[in-house]
């Protein structure tokens, strides 16, 4: 099929940018390991409170791992447990969360920490918290009447 000259330029330019774009995203994903949250561990969502690490929700300092803190969060309609979290600035934090009932969201507003929490699945995301301040955590998936009231707070504080 014959294409108009300008159309060829236009398509070449378009497809070229597309390839560059996909290459960058691909390298980011596979070489730098920056896939979106895709953890694959499962759990019995009716027994979350009895199963580690969710039997002790909160901030835990860890050693010998690639990250400094584990932040364990249990979501249920319409709460996060614990309702407030505190981590020192500059630390590398792994967020580990799950839901006890319906699907919820876990979004630290204004950052790229954003993952779905689904009953039966454990969601994880590791990141470095590099700015002090109070970060609002909101549920961003509709979960029922109390959805817009479901929130908690992450405080990133100066090291003592």
């Amino acid at each position, binding site marked *: *099929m014959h294409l108009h000259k300008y159309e060829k330029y236009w398509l070449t330019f378009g497809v070229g940018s597309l390839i560059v774009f996909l290459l960058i995203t691909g390298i980011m994903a596979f070489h730098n390991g920056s896939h979106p949250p895709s953890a694959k561990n499962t759990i019995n969502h009716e027994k979350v409170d009895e199963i580690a690490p969710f039997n002790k929700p909160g901030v835990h300092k860890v050693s010998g791992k690639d990250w400094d803190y584990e932040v364990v969060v249990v979501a249920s309609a319409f709460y996060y447990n614990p309702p407030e979290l505190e981590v020192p600035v500059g630390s590398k934090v792994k967020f580990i969360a799950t839901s006890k009932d319906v699907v919820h969201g876990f979004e630290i507003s204004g950052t790229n920490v954003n993952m779905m929490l689904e009953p039966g699945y454990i969601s994880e995301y590791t990141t470095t918290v590099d700015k002090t301040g109070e970060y609002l955590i909101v549920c961003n998936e509709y979960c029922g009447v109390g959805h817009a009231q479901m929130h908690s707070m992450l405080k990133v504080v100066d090291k003592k």
Partner: protein
Amino acid sequence: MSQTTIDQSKVIKENVTVSRKMANKTAEILKVDPKDAKLSMAHIFVAFIALLLGGTAGLLQVLVRSGHFELPWGIGYYQVLTVHGVLLGLILTTFFIYGFQIAGVSRTSGTLTPKQRLICWIGFWTMTIGTAMSATMVLLNEASVLYTFYAPLQAHWIFYLGLALVVVGSWIGGLGQALRWMQWRKENPNQTSPLLSFMVVCNNLMWFVATIGVAVEVLFQLLPWSLGLVERIDILLSRTLFWSFGHALVYFWLLPAYMVWYVVVPKVIGGKIFSDALARLSFIMFVIFSIPVGLHHQLTEPGVDGSWKFLQVVLTMMVVIPSLLTAFSLFASFELRGRELGGKGLFSWFKKLPWGDARFFAPFMGMLIFIPGGAGGIVNASHQMNQLIHNTIWVTGHFHLTVATAVVLTFFGATYWLVPHLTGRTLTKQLNQLGIIQAIIWALGMTIMSSSMHIEGLLGAPRRSAFSDYGGAEIAKTWASYQVAQAVGGTLLFIGIIIFLFIFVKLCWFAPKGEEEFPIGTVAENAEKTPAILENFKIWIVILVALILIAYTFPIYDIIQNSPLGSKGYKLW
């Protein structure tokens, strides 16, 4: 003058003068048969009743979210939002599309046979009864699960059954339309079929394949579970089945708008279709790349491997190619026409276009707004960037540009000739003027509402949320003014809906009687002949199925293999 009867001698004469093989037994039918018109209008009525009710819900939403208004009588925000999403996202769109497509097939391939028409009526009633069933459950507050009905929130089984009927009805109606095209092909062997009918068949084929996933979800998961036949449901599987349909859904909305842009608008401006072959090629590509891509809606979900997500991100981005083809073809046909009218230089042809014609102006505003809409879509589907905006109100801003403006304004523009054509009336000067004002109000209202949604989303505000101060958090205070702006834009939009419905009512019952043209463009003289392979659906279906198998077999196998204990139902509203 009755245009339904064919003046044979005229056809033959034109056949000689027109060298292209366009002229044939049925291509000369200029007017949709009254029986087909009635069928088409039935769909359009349901669509615009949905627009009125859904639009009212939209107004209530923006008012509630502004923080200065509370719903009376214990009505819940999420019940209203379910009404809005279902009526506008599913019902308005599907019914208008079928009304338009039936008229389009009848106009370009020829009047439906009584059997084909009967099939379409059965489809119509199946969809309508399904709609009524689901709507009743939503009104009774038995189904405030939003239009995506994610489990394990559990609606009444009648809600799911109603949706299943809408889908099955759409298969029946879609088949009726496709049969007319097949008949044309049989009667005109070795000829290129009418472009508009071909596009309709593409859209229905894509819809049919795409809805299989959601039909499986509803029939084998949600229905038995809500009826209490099974206790538990696999959440991730249900979501994955849903989204195998959900992205194709947006292309099912968009392709009819593209039909208007490719086939109708060139005729309205007095120009030609730039290339029949390119138009068909881009439609085939949309069919192929609309389905095996649903995982891009699940990028932040656990349980699916990052590499499979990435594969589908790559497939998603392939739609950039037909989109570029489309943009090129449309602007080429505008420029050719503008120059024909004496426009010179790099841009002055642009001024020559018929800006005072609502049939052109409304879809053109739609095209214009589709540019930022499409750009935003690339951000959404980008593997990592998605995390910043996933499930924020940015996403709502995005699809109010694409569906609720690009598509809906095009449908409004199409209504201005389609409805009077079908009802035997005409679009008067005043109504045309009002149509232009309507398009301006819509574009303005949407610019205000949608840009404030985009910004608020970047600031982290979640979507699908009633008003909340989030315990007085600082960041939530920065969201408030954008929610007020959304209420301003949303109010303008509601006014736009009222104006539009006023025009619609006029065109149905009160405008002066007469003949309104159903504009169908012809292909530019020197355009390339259409390669026959483009019409060989067997090849495209094989490629489509192969891509779906590649993209989905492993992820779904993996989800089932690793599935945790399923979920019981919850009613948390």
